[in-house]
């Protein structure tokens, strides 16, 4: 197990390093970035940039200083917001984005798993068709379409929910729905298919042959095995939710990190783009690392292979 974790940890560091290097190289390559002699009109900003990125030094030195600043989680100043650093923006926006993201993924997990299990247990029944129709629709309707539809119908026309911003639980309903539906649909489909597969296994038949009650067969014997594949895609889902917040926050005018990120793209605020990309990538890769470890803990087979390997 220790070896397994170490290997995953090494992969995580490697991936973050690749992303950091990639951003550095790409930013150096484009005209108009702070690395390529473009001067901003604001002197204070220019000074900050030069100090943070050490623009006087040769690129290779810049690179190592840059790596060091990332390792210490210091992402430098913003060009367009003179008084803010990237860290300020992250400090303001990320908690809100995280709140939105966490609520959405919990909603997606719970509803997706329940929908998937019900569909599998009533295979080819009405619930199955209904659940899978919802799931295919959920996958097919992009979150921005769903978001606008929800605002139009439930907020503007219906008046049940506030149109935008992030203030009270009522404000959270529509953005969460818009963000969670896609991942929910993916989880529901995956749960259903893996549940159907597990239900044909001999050990399920064996559990039934023991005379166990149906709910016990499902919950104790089938569900845990069926949810293994769901655990493996959690990382990907999280990435989807995270990038989804960019669009959702823009549409609902939620002052999260996603909104700042979209602004920075439109304004070509390169340090913010760089910093946010690296921060979010590191965050996702770390989440992936945690998921891998969780999988190792859940599946007794993985643990043993690694122990034998030692």
């Amino acid at each position, binding site marked *: 197990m220790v070896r397994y974790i170490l290997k995953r940890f090494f992969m995580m560091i490697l991936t973050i390093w690749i992303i950091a290097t990639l951003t550095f190289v790409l930013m150096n390559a484009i005209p108009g970035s702070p690395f390529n002699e473009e001067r901003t009109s604001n002197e204070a900003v220019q000074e900050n940039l030069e100090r943070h990125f050490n623009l006087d030094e040769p690129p290779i030195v810049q690179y190592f200083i840059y790596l060091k600043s990332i390792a210490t989680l210091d992402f430098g100043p913003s060009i367009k917001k003179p008084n803010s650093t990237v860290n300020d923006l992250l400090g303001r926006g990320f908690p809100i984005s995280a709140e939105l993201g966490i609520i959405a993924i919990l909603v997606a997990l719970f509803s997706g798993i329940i929908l998937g299990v019900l569909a599998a247990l009533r295979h080819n029944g009405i619930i199955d068709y209904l659940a899978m129709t919802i799931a295919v629709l959920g996958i097919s309707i992009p979150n921005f379409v769903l978001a606008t539809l929800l605002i139009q119908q439930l907020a503007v026309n219906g008046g049940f929910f506030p149109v935008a911003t992030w203030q009270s639980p009522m404000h959270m309903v529509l953005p969460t729905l818009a963000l969670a539906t896609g991942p929910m649909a993916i989880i529901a489909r995956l749960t259903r298919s893996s549940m159907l597969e597990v239900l044909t296994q001999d050990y399920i038949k*064996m559990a039934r042959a*023991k005379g*166990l009650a149906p709910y016990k067969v499902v919950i104790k014997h089938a569900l845990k095995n069926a949810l293994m594949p769901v655990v493996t895609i959690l990382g990907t889902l999280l990435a989807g939710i995270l990038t989804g917040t960019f669009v959702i926050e823009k549409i609902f005018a939620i002052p999260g990190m996603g909104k700042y990120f979209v602004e920075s793209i439109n304004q070509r605020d390169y340090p913010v783009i760089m910093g946010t990309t690296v921060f979010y990538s590191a965050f996702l890769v770390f989440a992936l690392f945690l998921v891998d470890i969780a999988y190792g803990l859940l599946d007794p087979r993985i643990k043993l292979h690694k122990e034998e390997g030692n």
Partner: protein
Amino acid sequence: MKKILEVNDLHITFSTYGGEIKAVRGVDFELHEGETLAIVGESGCGKSVTANSIMRLIPSPAGKIANGEIIFKGNDLAKESDKNMRKIRGVDISMIFQDPMTALNPTLTIGNQLTEGLRQHKNVSRKEAEQKALEMLDLVGIPNPEERLKQYPHQFSGGMRQRIVIAIALICEPDLLIADEPTTALDVTIQAQILELFETIQEETNVAIILITHDLGVVAKAADRIAVMYAGKIIESGTKYEVFYEPQHPYTQGLLNSIPRLDQKGEKLEPIDGTPPDLFSPPVGCPFTARCPHAMFVCEKVYPLRHEPSETHYADCWLYDERVHTPNLMNKKEETT
């Protein structure tokens, strides 16, 4: 010996997209305490379906018992409610599956899987259940049972896993054990050990066993009586010695000719040509007609009369009918007619 199971005129059908498959078409047999009945046949002949139907574990709603009775200790299981069936499964009747590698849940400990049946059906504490589990592991010959209880299936070899599966099946002391190809997935040496284990267990617990297999070697070692199934019907049945030494049905004869024997050196092995009939529309007459070396015109038209050479032995075949007098039949037949 007390009779514990009687199956009468059992019909099982499966509805599929292609139509209705008549998987079992009128099967009768009975079983007594402490006895082992082997049901033999090619894959798809209906032997596993028959076994599963006794547990009422045929996949529903596709498969159903269309007709017939399964009398177990006086109750007709074919008509029993699902709830009552759950009280019978694992307690009175247990089942062992073909592949021990897939029959155990990979994410639960052996101890958990051993005791859950006991805890479900009998009012025992966790401690008592574990004590019983230790005894069972000991009975099936697993060393260090205390440690083993905490381990997961992947930490055991195939043979060991099958022993565990057997322990699980026997933990509630059932009267009937259904073993569906219990040795097929195992190495030959392990097979022998498992079959010996069956013998030991039967001596100790007097459990009746239905052994489903296509392997005549297994049958020769473990069975008391044999039922040969073909295309959803039992076409020959008798004691082990009757079926092995005086096979009546050409299909049984073919099966026996297709396995190597140590006592008859130099004889050629003869596989049976052809394939079993399509069970979407099973033939009216004898289903083996198309592959039978002695087939007659009548075989195709009318299902054969039962031929009973002894009280315990029968075969459904026209060859033994007194109306057969055509000279160019089997040599043996000319003497009897």
